[in-house]
């Protein structure tokens, strides 16, 4: 073999090794951010299918560590953490420490079952996958591989009323747990989980849906919980009667964002189809606020909460911001304690 050939082969091998090395490093560190397009929202949005009408995010770690939560715990000392401890014993997950954040989504029309509306939750954190799988298997979970990801499906069997025969039993509430990446699990219906895996593999995720990503990019940084989506999806999901649905102003999209720390601050923003609808909605909300303030004069905690509500917005945007100070939660805690003593 000539020197020239050796150099060529060494160069080629170096390119392959360098590419694999960069990819491997990115795989274990959760991926390098996009070079040209600015990334909006958490990287886990890559698992949310492009047609999902609602997507939400919560930074569980920040919420759990917030002084508001600590205050809550202190103001309700009678509330035991037994359920939480039992959950930790069974799953190995300490909700306060092991979950960093969750991304949730409502399934799109293609994934949604007729009688079984389903959602998807993707959680980032530290999980004992072996223990979770064993727990699922103990509850009759079926393990399968789907495009290189491990899925455990547990079907809750429920007996139909008045039909004791086993043949009349059918699968209800089947839930699938998927180990998507190291430190990343997905929970939802089997269809939703498979659709999430497909979305990530084919890159046909919500990040390619410009309309939804615009809503996500409008979320101000610093909010540790938010949800955005199409309002029609919510209206359809709640199966509102036609008379009520027709009276709801024509809201196109909505965004809810909040920051939980010393207190609770946030904004609820709605985008209507036209300016007239926005004006109508503003008047409706203004009316409810006035009514609430009149009613709440005798109740200081409700009055304090309503005082923080501010209606704003122009054009087709209607925004309602709120700031609930920690004192209001203290008052609520006090009322709860008084109620228990009685």
């Amino acid at each position: 073999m000539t020197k020239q050939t050796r150099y060529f082969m060494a160069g080629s091998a170096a390119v392959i090794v360098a590419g694999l090395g960069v990819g491997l490093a990115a795989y274990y560190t959760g991926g390098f951010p996009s070079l040209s397009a600015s990334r909006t929202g958490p990287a886990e949005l890559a698992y949310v299918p492009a047609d999902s009408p609602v997507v939400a995010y919560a930074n569980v770690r920040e919420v759990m560590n917030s002084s508001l939560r600590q205050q809550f715990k202190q103001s309700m000392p009678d509330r035991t953490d037994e359920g939480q401890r039992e959950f930790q014993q069974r799953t190995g997950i300490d909700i306060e420490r092991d979950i960093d954040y969750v991304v949730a989504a409502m399934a799109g029309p293609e994934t949604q079952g007729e009688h079984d509306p389903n959602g998807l939750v993707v959680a980032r954190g530290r999980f004992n996958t072996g223990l979770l799988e064993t727990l699922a298997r103990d509850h009759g979970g079926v393990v399968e591989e789907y495009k290189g990801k491990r899925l455990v499906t547990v079907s809750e069997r429920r007996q139909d009323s008045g039909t004791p025969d086993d043949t009349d039993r059918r699968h209800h509430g089947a839930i699938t747990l998927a180990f998507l990446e190291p430190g990343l699990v997905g929970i939802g219906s089997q269809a939703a989980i498979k659709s999430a895996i497909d979305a990530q593999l084919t890159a046909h995720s919500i990040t390619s849906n410009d309309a939804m990503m615009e809503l996500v990019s409008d979320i101000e940084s610093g909010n540790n919980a938010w949800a955005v989506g199409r309002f029609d999806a919510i209206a359809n999901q709640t199966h509102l009667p036609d008379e009520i649905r027709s009276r709801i102003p024509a809201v196109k999209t909505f965004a809810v964002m909040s920051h939980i720390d010393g207190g609770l601050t946030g904004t609820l923003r709605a985008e209507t189809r036209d300016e007239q609808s926005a004006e109508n909605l503003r008047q409706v909300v203004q009316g409810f606020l006035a009514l609430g303030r009149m009613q709440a004069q005798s109740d200081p905690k409700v009055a304090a909460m309503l005082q923080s509500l501010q209606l704003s917005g122009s054009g087709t945007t209607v925004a309602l911001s709120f700031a609930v100070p920690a004192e209001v939660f203290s008052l609520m805690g006090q009322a709860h304690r008084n109620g228990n003593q009685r």
Partner: protein
Amino acid sequence: MSERPLPAAPGYLASSLRVFDLSIGEMLWSRRTIFMVLIVAAPVLIALLIRAIDALSGGRAMQVDGIRMAGPAIFGMMIWIFYLRFTVPVLGVFYGTSLIADEVEDKTITYLFTRPIPRGAVLAGKYLAYMACTVFVVLPSVVLVYLLIAPLRGSLGGSFLDLVKDLLLLAIGLGAYGALFALVGSTFKRPLLIGLIFIFGWEQAALAFPGYLKKFTVAYYLQALVPHAMPSNSALSLIQGIFRDTPSFGMSLFWLAVIWGVCLAVAARMVERKEYVLEQ
């Protein structure tokens, strides 16, 4: 005075490695390699172009039905269109058929056959040289395309496992097609024509019809290993997509191994037994 004993002839493996060493340089620095470099450089140039267009248009140019195409999806499409459907079979045909046929055409096969090595080792050594030559040219091109395209509204980490699978399946594809066309090259008189008819005629037609005919192609098993969605970029691929049935992962690997093993074994046996008549 006693005669010095002749040294023992080298074994099959040693002979193959000696032929590999001799052939790799010849193969790598031949005119055929210029053609190969052009083939594998095209996707890299297209990837660069995509990045430039995307950067200049702020991502608006890469849209399909109003949805922006993300890098991993474009990468998957490029693997299908450039590498799997074109580069791998074409390189298999051009290099595989020439392993023995070129030596016959150049009338240099006599020099190899008069060496004290098994004839089959000539084919094995040349096949190894073909694998090294194609793998070291095609795979770096795939890695460069991945580094350029995958971060586009996607992440390198998210597509890493796909890259590993792609590299492995392309190497498997080069191996299977190379073995098949090595057999064609050592058996028939016009192997290149037969090879081209096989990949652009038989395989394309068989994959487009329902039924069992597709089982007599390499592409049927190779395409089952691809981790990306099959693109429907032409009428033919749309029809192939409609009639596509995917064998299981294990079954695909098994049949690719069978094609590889049987073709190489038969090709080596062919070279051992066949009398190559050199045209004067």
